[in-house]
Each structure stands twice: as C-alpha cells, then as structure tokens.
C-alpha cells in the first residue's frame, strides 16, 4: 500500500531530446578529461568533452600554487598555467565542447537502438541534449571528504569548510572565509592552504594531523609551514566543534597508536574557521548508475590494463579512478585512457578477444593495486600506494604462491602514488602456473 507522491506530469507529446553522435564522449574537462580527449582526437576519433563549469581546467583553476608540470613539461608551473596549456591545445582542435553542461546519466535515458553505443544525457542552459559514442571516458575527478564522514562531534556552526571550498572562496570568488583558522589534515591541500591563508591575512593557528607523520610532500611542509612559522601538530585531531552560529573554537586532542583520542589531552583552540583537508573520494555516482563496478579500496572503477571498466566501451582515468598526488601523472594516465577509448571506438585496437583473465590484488602494506584486471599478456603499468610510511620495503609479485618478481629495497610513503612496470613475461609465468590472480605485495624489511 505504498503511497508515493505522483510525479507524473502531463507533458503531451514528448519531443525527442536532441542527439549528437561522436566516437568518444569524455565526461569532465579537467586535466584528465582534456588529456584523454586530446589523445583520442590524435588517434582519429570524433571527440566531445562535457564540462559542468563554464571553462575547461577543472580544479586546477583554483590551484594557483606552483608544483605542476615538473615531469610533463620539465618546468615548474602553477595549476592555472598547467591547465591553460591543455586548454590551448584543445581549442586548437575540432573537439566539441559542451561547457556549463551537467551529465545526468549514462545510458539511463532512452535506450539506444545500437546497444554498442553509449548515450550520455546532459543538461545545460541551452536545454537537454544526448551525446552518443561507442566509447565514454569517465574523468569526473573527486570530491573532498567532509566533516560528517570523519565524524567530528560537536555543534554545526558556520565556518567549517573543506579546504577546497575555502580555496575556491579565496582564489576564485575573492571572498575571505574568516580571520583565524585551524587546519585539520597535513595532506598537500591542507599545507598549501596554510600558506594561502597566511599570505591573505588569515592567521593560521596550526595544522593538526591525526597520523604520526605529515601526509604531504616535504617541500610543502617546508615551503608552506616552516617558511611562515605555522606549527604542525602530529598525532592530534579535532575532537569537538564549538560555537552556535559561527565557529568559536575547536577542541583538539592527542591520539594513541590506534588513533583514538586520549582523554585528558584536550585543548581548546579559539578560531573562527576550520579547514578540513582529510582526504579525497573519487566521484563515481554516475559510474555506478551506469553499471560500472567499483573497487572498495580506491572507490574508483575496477579497470583492466587499458583503463577500461567492466562495462565495455566505458573507460576511466584521473582522480575518478584513483586519487593522484601529481597532475602530471593524471595526464599520463588519461592519455592512455583516451587512446584506448579511441581504439575501441574505431575498432583499431587489439583483438576483441582477451588473451587472459587475471585479477590483481594488493597485499602487505599496499593499500590498493591498479589495474584490478589484466586481459592481455603485455607490459602493464601497475599503480599502488602504501598504507603507512616505511624506511625499507620491497615490491613482490606473486602468483599461485610463487614469487615471480622482487624489487629493490627502498623507502615508501603513503603520499606518493607508486608506479611499477609489470613485464609481459611475468604475466606469462603467472598464466603458466595456472593462476587466476596476481598479488602485488609491498613487504617491509625488518631492521637487522
């Protein structure tokens, strides 16, 4: 006896939504989307980019600090400069741009006649539109974890911002979010914002970090905190938000080895602004609705070595796939996805029949391994990230209980996304052993 409010609206004759056909539809016009689109275009595909903002560039438009381009352009650029170079390249092509356009669904509208074609439904001030393409590249990026997700107790006043929102207020909107800030999280965004706030006259009372180590790059700790005398408090977290209307203070507490707050260590830090830099989450709501399977570890799609998801013709790259620390790596990865999407759409890729079907799993202190599936016996780039910093560890590749490869002993940090080339011969060895699973294990070496 469910009684739902009727949403049926008498529309009379339903006019078909206008449709435009492409080979590859790229969702997202940030660094990932632009690199994928350019690579697909270079491979001869008709390409469209759908971007919800009125400009290309994505989050790089507000990342005005330097540190970009060291590997891709061999020089240090700011985020906007890095983006502008790709924007200029895109504008020099006939890639179709749908700006100010929000994708509402993939394959969720009218079923296409040709089932091998994907339909992307989007809205914009110009109206509703559907794009079709044999291939779709997911490049929607990520969002920030919120206060609720990390369950900070207390009241809910104004003045609690994710670091990226504060960055937008300061760098895009020309609005000062407050005068006296506390920053939770020592990832690169938190560190960068400590410097931005200080330069813009917002005093930063301190950066607080749950873990016993700084999460960001050392250069950022030095250039963003040390340069300005901003203190970094490790193994300390915010345990209460105080203030009814506007934030008045936060309570911070030290945490034990299990990251639980230690009673009796509470301190009240007066402030009117709390910035949260507590992690990024790939934005995959569209992907899930399109039937794409996610990896619970990365919260991005499970992909194969060509970055194709479990849905044929749908590819993923950049921060929607897994969170990167360097835009340069996003570019490299996305160029691969774009090229693979074009090859798929144009039928110029390797044979449709896979060589093999292997899964890849992380072990030891590896937090994840990507790609999660290998379907070709070829040199495969594996990405992974460790869960905690270690001074000495090695990468090992195992299949069917046999060690097929062991890397050299070196330090690993969670802030760095690692890349490891898996030779074709190792994949072949795994198959010869009759294995269906390859394990990428990062194992700490005990100090002698």
């Amino acid at each position, binding site marked *: *006896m*469910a*009684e*739902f*409010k009727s*949403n*049926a*609206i008498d*529309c009379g004759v*339903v*006019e078909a*939504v206008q449709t435009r056909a492409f080979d590859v539809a790229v969702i997202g016009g940030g660094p990932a989307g632009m690199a994928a689109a350019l690579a697909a275009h270079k491979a001869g595909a008709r390409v469209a980019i759908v971007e*919800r903002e009125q400009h290309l560039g994505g989050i790089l438009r507000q990342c005005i600090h330097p540190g970009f381009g060291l590997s891709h352009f061999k020089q240090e650029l700011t985020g906007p400069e890095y983006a502008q170079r790709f924007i200029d390249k895109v504008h020099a092509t006939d890639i179709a741009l749908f700006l*100010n356009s*929000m994708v*509402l669904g993939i394959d969720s*509208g009218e079923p296409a006649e040709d089932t091998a074609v994907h339909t992307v*439904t989007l*809205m*914009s*001030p*110009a*109206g*509703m539109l559907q794009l079709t393409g044999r291939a779709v590249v997911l490049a929607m990026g990520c*969002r*920030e974890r*919120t*206060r*609720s*997700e990390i*369950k900070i*107790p*207390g*009241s*809910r*006043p*104004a*003045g609690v*911002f994710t670091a*990226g*929102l504060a960055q*937008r*207020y*300061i760098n*895009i*909107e*020309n*609005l*000062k*979010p*407050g*005068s006296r800030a506390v920053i939770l999280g020592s990832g690169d965004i938190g560190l960068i914002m400590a410097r931005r706030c200080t330069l*813009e*006259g917002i005093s930063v009372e301190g950066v607080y970090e749950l873990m016993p180590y700084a999460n960001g790059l050392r250069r950022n700790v030095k250039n963003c905190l040390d340069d300005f005398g901003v203190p970094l408090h490790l193994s300390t977290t915010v*345990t209460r*938000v105080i203030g*009814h*209307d*506007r934030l008045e203070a936060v309570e911070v507490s030290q945490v034990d080895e299990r990251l639980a707050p230690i009673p009796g260590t509470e301190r009240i830090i007066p402030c009117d602004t709390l910035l949260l830099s507590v992690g990024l989450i790939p934005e995959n*709501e569209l992907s899930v609705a399109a039937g794409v399977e996610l990896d619970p570890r990365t919260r991005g799609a499970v992909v194969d070595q060509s970055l194709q998801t479990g849905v044929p013709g749908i590819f993923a790259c950049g921060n929607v796939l897994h969170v990167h620390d360097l835009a340069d790596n996003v570019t490299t990865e996305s160029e691969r996805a774009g090229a693979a999407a074009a090859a798929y759409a144009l039928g110029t890729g390797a044979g449709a029949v896979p060589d093999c079907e292997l899964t890849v799993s992380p072990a030891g202190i590896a937090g994840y391994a990507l790609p999660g599936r290998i379907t070709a016996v070829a040199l495969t780039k594996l990405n992974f990230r460790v869960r905690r910093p270690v001074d000495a560890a090695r990468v090992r590749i195992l299949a069917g209980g046999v060690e097929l490869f062991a890397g050299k002993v070196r330090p690993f940090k969670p802030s760095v996304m690692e890349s490891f080339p898996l030779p074709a011969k190792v994949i072949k060895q795994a198959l010869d052993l009759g294995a269906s699973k390859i394990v990428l294990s990062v194992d700490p070496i005990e100090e002698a």
Partner: protein
Amino acid sequence: MTETFDIAIVGAGITGCAIARQLARFDLSICVVEAANDIALGASKANGGLVHAGYDPTPGTVKAQVNARGCELYGTWAQELGFLFCRTGSMVLGFNDEDRAHLEQLRRNGYVNGVPEQSIVGPDRIHELEPRASADATCALWCPSTGFVDPFEVAIAALENAIANGATFMRSATVEAIEVASSGDDARFTLATPAGNVRCRYLINAAGNGAADISHMAGAEEFQMVWRQGNIVVLDKEPRTLMPLYPVPTPVSKGVIVTGTVHGNTVITATAAVREPGDTQTYASDVNALLTGAHKLVPDLDTRRVVRAFAGGRPVIQGTNDFFIGQSAVVPGLFQAAGIQSPGVASAPAIAERMELVMREAGVELHERADWNPIRREPDDFDRAPLARKEELIESDPAWGQIVCRCETVPEAEIVAAIRRQPGAVSVEGVKRRCRAGMGRCQSGFCQSRLVTILARELGCDPSEVLLEDAGSWLVEGPLKGVR
C-alpha cells in the same frame, strides 16, 4: 509597531505550521510568530521524519489518541499539500522469545490505539518485506501504515498553504513578554517581539522547547521542559530505499531505528539522553551507539557513507511523557500544544485537528471561508521531473539548465524559487531544506560559494551578510583583492 490578529501561534515548527494550516480555512486572521529566522529550526529540524503508526504510546494517553490518527491523515495531507510521503510500512524486529512477548504487547497497544492491519510475522515474511533486515530476527511486528516524510517539507507546505489562505508569518520574532489584559477584551494578549508587537484574541502555544517559557510569560500553567537530546545520522543514497526497522522499544525511547527517507537516503535515529537545554552537539558516543544499533537491524549497512550527523532536543514536559493539548485552565483564550516530543511529526495533522476541536469546545467561533483552498502547488523539482518536463523547464528559463548543486541535481532556477516563495529561504540552510541544494554527499563543498552568490543577489545584500542559518552565522568576510 503593533499588528492585531484573531489568532497568534507561537512557534513555526511542524506543530505550529500544521495548526496554522488547519485554522486558515476559517474566517479568522492568523499570525505565526517564530523566534528563528526560518521555520522548523527547533525540534522539527532534528528529526528522523518517521510517521510512526501509533502502537507505541500507552493507550489512553493524548499521544495514543493523536498518533494513529495523524498517521492516517498523512495520506490526505500529502496529496493536498504536495509533499513527499512514503507509506512503506515498518517492522519492529524481535530476536528472542522475550522480544516476541514485547511485540505482542505492542500489537495489543496498537489495536487499542486504532493502528490498522498489524500482524506478527516470522523470518520468511520479514525477509520478503525487507531483504536487508537482520537474518537473526526471529519475529517482527509488521505494521503497514508506517511511513516517512521530510519534516521540513511538511512544515513548509503547511505554512505555505496557510499563507496562501491569508495567514501572516513573522520571523526573527522571539516573544520576550506577554501582556494579558482582562478577559472580554477583543485582543487580550499582547506579545512583545523584536520584530514588532502582536496583539491577538486567542494565543496558541506551539513553541516546542520554548513552550514552558511562553506559558510562564502568559501567567498560565507552570511546567519545566526537559531537553531529551537525540543524535541522528544520515547516510548516502541507496539504490533501494529501506523500510523503517525498529528494535523493541525501551521505556523512554523507541531505540535506534533505521529508515529510508523520501529522498532515498538512509537515516539512523535517534539516541536519547537528557542534556543541557539548547545542546545540539553531536557526541562520538551517541554516533557510535547509532551505528552499532543500526548494524543490529541491517548488518550490511555501509556506515562509512555518513552524509551528515546532527542533534536536537525533544520538547519533553518534566514529570509526564505525554503531549499537553488543550485550553489553559488558568488563562482562558490561551491554547497549549506543548510537550510535542516524539511522535510529534507523525501526530502533527491530528494535533492540528484536535486543536480545532478544543477551540470549538472552548467557544471559539470557526466559520469556514468560502475561498479556502486546501491545495498547495508544490515547487518544480528538476531532479524528479521526467526528461520532457526538464526540457520544458529549461525552455521556460535557461536558469533551469544551470546546475548549482551537482550531488542532488538542483539548478539555479529551483534555488531562486526557494528564495522567492512565501515564506522563502533567507539562508544557505534554508535553501537546502527547501530544494536540497547542498544536502548531498559533498555537503555543499562544491556549491556553497554559488549559493552565497545567489542568496546575496536575490536578497539584495552583500555576500558577507549571507547566513548559513540564523543570525550570527556569517559565512564569509568581505573581498580580499581590489581593496586598499
């Protein structure tokens, strides 16, 4: 400045708004006086939105009389007022013989209280009704009339309808003093508020947690409010909306309940602890208790996906667990709707109905207006509109195609409408509660700065004057650049 009305209702929570709507059909002038700058900012806001069936209250109490009736009325109210109401039915899960005896008791209560079609069901039927219910549940009280609403949407729909029928709404009007003239005066009550004075012939106290203060100011019944605080957690949307699942209740509360929402989220509600009045903080211990309790009912619940945790106080009258609905025995002309704690949302339409009856019995003459319109046209909801309607909306105004909140797919035109309707949103949270902009998983991380821009433009103020919620909750200071 003093304005005079036949009736003043103090408090624009779900109770006050429902009463305003009920009385707006009569030929009387009504003013709803609210301390906050928007409606439903007290107990109605910190609420799980459940429309409980009515088996829980002890037979014979006021609660027992209005709960099942309120639940019944929601069908009509939802249709007339155009708010979302899902009558999914619910189950109280039992895990052992002791629980089963308790369920039998609840069923008997329900029978006496007028709850329709209840039955005790076994494991097979439990999993047919809600496949995600715990496999450890051996029995359940199945109650098909239970449902859920968005309490804010109900309150605003009711007040919009009252306003459309001539009622007046005064915001930011904390009642600071009440003067009561000798009886016989046509407008014997004078309420002093910072927004101006209000004179009225009849005064309705629907002030929620402030009800004891209002009663005291009017020289009526003396009672104390107890702040029975509850924490609530909202989880991200699920492909399938969960049916409300309850544990066997305790003497003070219904326990930790898991339920779907009208927007497809999952809510875990609520803890119960007596705390300092006004305390709306969440507590780590409460949130953990909610997540633990929820897992007992729905073991596969992904509690990583917390969208929001919040808290509020249920307005409980000390010494009684019941509602107080009736004319003051001390001050004639003052009508009390006090102690409206749980199940206040479920009972709201019936409390309004009962208030009408109480007033009639007290000799208040209520004549239906010829032009009374019970229908409220709900605002367009872009996300839920079919594709063709979406096209039509964008064609009517390109701002319907301008996305602002990406998580909940709310375009600019829908936000502007939320600000321009009466009573319109005056804050970022007010916009959120009306059209869901900023309610999603990113919690306005992406859209808050746009909402500030739109609110500043529509309200004709500077961005630094835009509020998150009520007075003092400023979001940004002035510009950083281009200033000397």
